[in-house]
């Protein structure tokens, strides 16, 4: 896959962009390029950070931007002939939908029953496109069009850790207490981010995820 644009976001960070849209095929390529780069660190390489459709390479002053561009372009060409990573196992996330404080209001807005919303949210396998916003926050897609809603006009000031939320064609999980503008439809007892755990993130870009409804008493047991 060819880069559509290569640009600096810092004198020592260059971004390789493959599209300006959200696409599973492109994200698969970005994650594969990240994995390949991490397996083949070059002189001066610090880290690689994937987003929906681009990969950013951070490097130190012992290497020039042109050298980095050349190395990553070579990696990118090798990748097309390289065997792709197999489809990852699906991670199951239990969700207590009773604890979704915005579920009643969005049921009205979408003109669907709460049960139908839960059913639709649980009947898809999602891809983790990227981690960002706050430590461990997974941006997952693609949400079925029946559940598409714009973000809240006024973001909630405090969202509980583990809150499962939707916005636009995405679904996500708030790992820590934070403000946020997505609609809260449930809560998971799983610690999505734990600094003291290795790895600290429960999910990483490229993972496949399914949600499974649980009752409040099961939530309390699992928590």
């Amino acid at each position, binding site marked *: 896959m060819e880069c559509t644009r290569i640009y600096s976001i810092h*004198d020592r960070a260059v971004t390789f962009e493959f599209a300006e849209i959200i696409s599973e095929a492109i994200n698969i390529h970005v994650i594969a390029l990240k994995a390949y780069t991490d397996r083949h660190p070059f002189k001066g390489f610090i880290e690689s*950070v994937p987003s*929906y459709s*681009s990969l950013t390479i951070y490097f130190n002053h012992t290497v020039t931007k042109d050298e980095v561009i050349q190395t990553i372009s070579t990696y990118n060409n090798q990748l097309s002939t390289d065997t792709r990573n197999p489809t990852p196992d699906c991670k199951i996330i239990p969700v207590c939908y009773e604890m979704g404080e915005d579920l009643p209001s969005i049921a009205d807005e979408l003109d669907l029953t709460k049960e139908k919303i839960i059913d639709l949210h649980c009947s898809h396998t999602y891809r983790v496109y990227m*981690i*960002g*916003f706050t430590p*461990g926050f997974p941006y997952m897609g693609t949400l079925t069009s029946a559940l598409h809603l714009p973000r809240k006009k006024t973001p909630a000031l405090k969202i509980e850790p583990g809150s499962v939320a939707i916005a636009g064609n995405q679904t996500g999980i708030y790992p820590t207490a934070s403000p946020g503008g997505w609609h809260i439809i449930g809560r998971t007892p799983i610690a999505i*981010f734990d600094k003291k755990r290795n790895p600290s993130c429960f999910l990483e870009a490229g993972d496949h995820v399914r949600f499974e409804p649980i009752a409040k008493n099961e939530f309390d047991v699992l928590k």
Partner: protein
Amino acid sequence: MSITIVKPGISTTVQDFGRWGNQSMGQSIGGVMDEVSASIANIICKNDQHAPVIEMTLHGTELLFNEDAFIAFSGFGAEAMADETILPFYKLLFIPAGTLIRMKPKNKGCRSYLAMAGGLQFDEMGSTLQSGDLIKSEDRQYAFKGIERTKQIGISQWKIHFNEQDLLEHSIDAIRGPEWDWLDASTQEELFTKPFIVSTQSNRMGYRLNEKVGGLKEKKEMISTAVTKGIVQLTHEGNPVILMADAQTTGGYPRILRIAPAHIAKLAQCKPGDSIKFNQITEDVSILQSNAQRSLLNKIKSSIDLI
């Protein structure tokens, strides 16, 4: 060896020079805001240039020394006082056990740094300090030429010389950002001619600027992509936001400028209410500036090594 935080002041943290390797998990790099001042404090103490230091925003911090220590202050956020004695910045100081140091208003820059010979240890790197927090250092007997270990505060004869104005003037060099071409021509011109005031809604994550600028040629939505320290985003309301040391790892606003890395230290010393101006440079010039900044620190280090 330890220091007790008696009062945390406006905001006091222990900072290293950034924790890399976890941005793909959404963890920001963090680290000191003004790397130049923080490095100088470490160099004076003959520490590793990138050893952890205490970063104090403006004034109000009070620190109690539980044991004897050799320390150095740098930066411009406050005046350091021990009783009625003003403790000079950019000199090596001997502080006897039991000394209480208070940071008083100075109205020059925004941040001060304290380095201690032996470096500092703290588990919660970057988290806001509270009264009663204990910051430890390596337990070792340090000795420095020309400064006595007595029951009194000792001050070195020598002082680090550099042009303070380099860190205190508010002309900030910037390079066109990845979405520069999205801006209409008048906005592009506005960015490099108009003065901007640093808003009170500014912190270690980012500086919001009070003035709005025109906008985009056409309405265009961006999908989230990487951002880092120095990126200037254009928010929906039209206010530019400069991302600083605790920058988030990804963002979805157009990245209209990026600050020359060598000029981040100057921004770190800007207070809410200060007026700044952007000056356009190229990436090549920016890289030369960073090299010059590294050489300056190396030169200071060599001069200290001779003492």
